[in-house]
């Protein structure tokens, strides 16, 4: 059984400030081309494999729109 990092972005809660993108130490995130319901550019995960699960993005987001979770990989567990 292994643990996988999941970065959850709540697009419609995001105000597009870009703080998470700026303070991610591993450049995991980038600004989206698309807009959310409030016309904001939300972050997108571009290099998930680089994420070190430091949760800085989550600590710095003023709007609770991004979170990083360590989830158990159930698929592997079954194998």
């Amino acid at each position, binding site marked *: 059984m292994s643990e996988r990092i999941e970065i*959850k972005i*709540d697009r419609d*809660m995001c*105000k*597009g*400030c*870009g*703080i998470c993108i*700026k*303070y991610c130490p591993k450049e995991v995130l980038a600004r989206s081309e698309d807009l959310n319901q409030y016309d*904001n550019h939300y972050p997108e995960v571009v290099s998930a494999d680089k994420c070190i699960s430091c*949760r800085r993005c*989550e*600590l*710095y*987001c*003023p*709007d*609770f*729109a*991004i*979170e*990083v*979770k360590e989830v158990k990989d159930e698929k592997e567990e079954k194998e």
Partner: protein
Amino acid sequence: MITAEEIREKYVRNHPSPFCPGCGGGMVLNAMSRAVESAGIDKKDVVAVSGIGCAAWIPSPHWRVDTLHTTHGRAVAFASGVKIADRDLEVMVVSGDGDCAGIGGNHLLHGARNNIDLNVIMVNNGLYAMTGGQVAPTTEHDEKTLTTPYGNPASSFEVAEVVKAAGASHVARWTTYHMKELVKEVEKAVDTKGFSFIEVLAQCPTRKGKKEGMTGIEMLEWYKENTSKDQDSEKMYVGTFCDVERPELTEEIYRQIERLGGE
């Protein structure tokens, strides 16, 4: 560690907030929620008191604890009443610099002198943001605001130093760039018996940033570049100003009542 979604469910009300994109207000809300969670305090025991201004909206209506949204500058006075009435409550004050150090400056001084067991978080964006960006006692000398278009002829004052001199048990200063330290400091404030004051420099990209041509991120970078944890540095000091034991007001009041045979 609590996740953003858990914070949202447990501690945040009326989300998304009306704060501008990149405003430091949401970061303070994030830090306070994490601190209360890791200090292991039941949020039913927390009362948050605020006055008027953008920062006053951080707890009311956006923090899911009992809140009192009071008049401009009077948060410390109302909070003192709450604490004296029920000492078991963890009383937080969240107030902007204009509200806390300007309009409510006298309440702040006497709250510190009384050393009443409150946790005051002064969210300092350097001006009166909600009303359009007028000069505040925290606006730097020469800085341009809506009401000082040629630069502030007066000087700002070091609120943390003033509160320390007035007798508070615990005084500290951080910025929204220092989120980890801020969470720890709020936890420490909650643990302190006596007046705790934390100044948090928090970016206002709308009223202050636009005037200076800076985004929220650039303001966070400014905090990073221009502050230091070293007290001897030329840069602005961030860290603890004092952490001392002094008689606390409500304890003294209740001791007196006991001595006089009251209940």
